[in-house]
């Protein structure tokens, strides 16, 4: 923080960590400020409503703020694929990031458990083990590397975990978990993962978890098979409920005696990580739907229906690669294709073909009597940019590339850039900003005062937009404009297209959506 510290040989990694920590702190403070501000002026209730009902479950939610969750922009970026899961989302990630998990054993099971939990963003991970890394561990204990042979497994595991995700708090317990220290260690954690390799530890850990009322995710692997159980959770049994009498030692072999295929503990460990995440996030990832046509309450799915059910037609995909041609299941749009009337000049030949382009443009101009434009397209928009770059320097200054991912549905006049919108905000021009992303996206982050109306609901919510505009006009005494934003700028165009045909002819969308907003205007706005 002060210059003395920076100059005194702190490593780059330390500084980065400090920056990360301070950023998180700043985020937290800003979030609290917004929350308090919202309490001072309880106006704009109509706008709030769209987001508030779904946010009420979040303890630190904030109305109308840039970050509705407590996740920092860095976290939003890192865990964006979690956040995009409607069944996991911000709630799941927040709960996970606030939970602490103890992994007992840093071996074949513990390796994937620790790596996945850290990668997925658990708040705090404790690892207990007293063992040393040996070369004959490495075929299955994938968290360790040769460099750590002879060193503590916990040290090695913590180092790998830190390399994967330095924002997770790691606690190293370089000791064996035993009845004497177990209560003390386990009590510091919310969830315990049993990744040990012996029977007594299993009973001990289970008993300890019962005493401390901790859920226990237990895994075991040997040879070619494995077992996975969640004990002491939601009224479920404990290890002793299932196995009140320990088997004789002959019946319970160890990997070191009987062998184990390397991947087997890996598979079980991954499943343990999954179960631990489910417990930590308290998110029901899979549950029976009462409305399900197959297993639901009113399902009438019989063997007969099943046998005559056309699964290929249902899924629009073939059961085997070979049948796809015959069935013609691949939609026209996904076949390799070209835009009609496009001319093919591979990027590698572009240099030699400038005259061809020149004559084509001339021809098009002659045919129409107007000046012809030049567009370039490729598969994903990279090569076309390279081509435009080259063309612009070689006699075609007005060439433009068509980015294949971007939609151009509405006229330029119905669009504004993020920067222009920012001007409108800064000058206090009355307006309403509608965010048409799905609700769980809106929860990740949103522009202040935007109202969330998912594109799929737009049709039913026109009156809401109408009253919001009216309110904004009343408050300011001027006519209020309507803007639409989405994640990348495609859905917002669809929304504007619809709005313009349904009573809002002046609606405009923000080009490039929140992605551009984050790039061009508000760099602190999280990209996900």
């Amino acid at each position: 923080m002060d210059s003395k510290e920076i100059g005194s040989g702190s490593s780059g990694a330390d500084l980065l960590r400090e920056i990360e920590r301070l950023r998180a702190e700043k985020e937290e403070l800003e979030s609290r400020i917004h929350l308090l501000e919202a309490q001072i002026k309880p106006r704009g209730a109509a706008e709030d409503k769209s987001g508030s009902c779904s946010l009420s479950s979040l303890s630190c939610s904030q109305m109308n703020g840039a970050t509705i969750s407590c996740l920092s922009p860095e976290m939003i970026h890192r865990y964006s694929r979690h956040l995009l899961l409607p069944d996991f989302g911000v709630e799941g990630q927040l709960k996970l990031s606030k939970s602490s998990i103890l992994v007992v054993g840093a071996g074949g099971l513990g390796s994937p458990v620790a790596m996945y939990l850290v990668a997925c963003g658990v708040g705090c991970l404790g690892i207990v083990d007293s063992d040393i890394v040996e070369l004959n561990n490495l075929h299955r204990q994938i968290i360790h590397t040769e460099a750590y042979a002879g060193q503590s497994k916990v040290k090695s595991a913590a180092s790998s975990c830190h390399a994967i995700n330095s924002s997770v708090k790691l606690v190293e317990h370089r000791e064996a978990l035993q009845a004497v220290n177990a209560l003390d260690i386990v009590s510091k954690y919310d969830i315990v993962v049993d990744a040990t390799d012996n029977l007594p530890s299993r009973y001990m850990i289970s008993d300890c978890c019962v005493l401390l009322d901790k859920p226990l995710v237990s895994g075991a692997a040997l040879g070619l098979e494995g077992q996975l159980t969640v004990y002491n959770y939601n009224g479920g049994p404990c290890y002793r409920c299932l196995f009140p009498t320990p088997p004789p030692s002959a019946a319970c072999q160890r990997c070191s005696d009987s062998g184990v295929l390397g991947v087997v503990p890996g598979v079980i460990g991954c499943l343990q990580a999954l179960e631990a995440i489910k417990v930590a996030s308290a998110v029901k990832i899979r549950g029976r739907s009462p409305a399900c046509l197959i297993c639901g309450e009113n399902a009438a799915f019989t063997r007969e229906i099943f046998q005559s059910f056309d699964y290929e037609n249902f899924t629009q995909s073939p059961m085997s690669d070979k049948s796809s041609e015959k069935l013609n299941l691949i939609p026209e749009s996904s076949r390799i294709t070209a835009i009609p009337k496009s001319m093919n000049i591979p990027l590698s030949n572009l240099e030699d073909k400038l005259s061809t382009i020149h004559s084509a443009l001339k021809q098009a101009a002659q045919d129409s009597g107007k000046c012809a434009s030049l567009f370039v397209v490729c598969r994903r928009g990279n090569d076309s940019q390279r081509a435009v770059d080259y063309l612009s320097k070689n006699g075609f200054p007005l060439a433009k590339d068509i980015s294949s991912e971007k939609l151009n549905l509405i006229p330029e006049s119905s669009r504004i850039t993020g920067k222009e919108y920012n001007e409108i905000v800064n000058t206090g021009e009355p307006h309403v900003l509608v965010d048409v992303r799905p609700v769980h996206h809106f929860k990740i982050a949103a522009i202040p005062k935007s109202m969330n109306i998912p594109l799929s609901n737009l049709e039913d919510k026109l009156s809401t937009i109408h009253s919001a505009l009216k309110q904004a006009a009343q408050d300011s005494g001027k006519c209020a404009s309507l803007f639409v934003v989405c994640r990348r700028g495609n859905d917002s165009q669809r929304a504007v297209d619809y709005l313009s045909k349904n009573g809002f002819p002046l609606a405009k969308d923000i080009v490039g959506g929140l992605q551009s907003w984050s790039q061009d205007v508000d760099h602190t706005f999280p990209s996900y």
Partner: protein
Amino acid sequence: MTEEPKDTCDVIGSQKTNPSRDKDLAPYIKIKVLFFARARDLTGSTELCLEMPDGSTARDCMNKLLIEFPNLREIYNSMVLALNEEYAPESTILRNKDELAIIPPISGG
């Protein structure tokens, strides 16, 4: 973890398990038994078919197996039974074509 599921069990080692077949006295049900981990080592099979009198419980089934494979006693007190992929107590009454799995704990990691 388990073998390919099979609907019929007449293919699988039933010759070993049914010494006193008496179809005339009572109707019989067929039970598929799966052996995991140590149970597989002790019996030398991954699965087999048992014919039991109608109304038999899982315990009856186990008793029959213990006669056939006395060394299963090693794990008899420390194993769980799963009937049709769900844990079940020994008192559960079996039905025709049920699948009974014998699951001793494993402890490796």
